[in-house]
């Protein structure tokens, strides 16, 4: 599924689009622990988190993730968006709880793809 379609279906707010709306994504990872994401998320994944600080952009960039969805209405720092723009990271926001977001992505056909480095 294209990120642009996810945005429409889940009514996500686009914080930084980074030219990524045409990107295809098929897997997803949910965690608020950065080194857990580092060790487990797959390249191109959609990462759902309630962290909104700048290290989120660093992690997403280093892992070449497809997009980050900051859920639960969590605040996103301006620095995070700046870093995301610099590194072509798509950041999306939603007021929905992360369980809800994950459930809807699952219903849309996305799956987990945990890997061990």
């Amino acid at each position: 599924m294209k990120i642009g379609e996810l945005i429409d279906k889940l009514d996500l707010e686009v914080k930084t689009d980074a030219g990524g709306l045409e990107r295809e994504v098929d897997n997803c990872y949910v965690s608020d622990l950065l080194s857990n994401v580092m060790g487990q998320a797959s390249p191109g994944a959609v990462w759902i988190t309630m962290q909104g600080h700048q290290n989120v952009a660093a992690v997403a960039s280093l892992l070449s993730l497809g997009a980050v969805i900051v859920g639960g209405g969590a605040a996103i720092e301006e620095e995070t968006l700046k870093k995301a723009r610099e590194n072509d990271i798509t950041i999306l926001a939603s007021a929905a709880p992360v369980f809800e977001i994950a459930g809807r992505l699952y219903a849309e056909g996305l799956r987990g793809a945990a890997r061990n480095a």
Partner: protein
Amino acid sequence: MCEPFMDLSFDLTAGDFERAGEASGKIKKTLQQIGVSADIVRRVAIGTYEGEMNVIIHSHGGTAKAHIYPEYTVVVLEDTGPGIADIELAVQEGYSTAPDYVRDLGFGAGMGLPNMKSCSDCFEIVSKAGEGTKITMRFAHKKA
């Protein structure tokens, strides 16, 4: 070949979350530019980021260095203390002394050192309480 064809060096400042990830990001970009495969670049990025964050969070500051050879990359993270008293304990999954303020930022799972170990082909910690810590990781550019 014995001489690295490229050396990168970065200063890491304790508590500097603003620039955290810069060293890893630049090392990642350099390896991408010279054509190292995406999977290997990713392993270097993960290992280096975890090491970089540990220096920023747990130490008084230090350096991140990458020595890039044709066949492999060596990443060295060195800091000026306080050192790790019990290395065997520190490398256990889940062990963390991270203070609350960094846990609020999502650090402190106690997975950084285990990630560094599993991403690299060769992993060494030299440390002493009261002195500094030196971590060396080696990444082959082709999987054996």
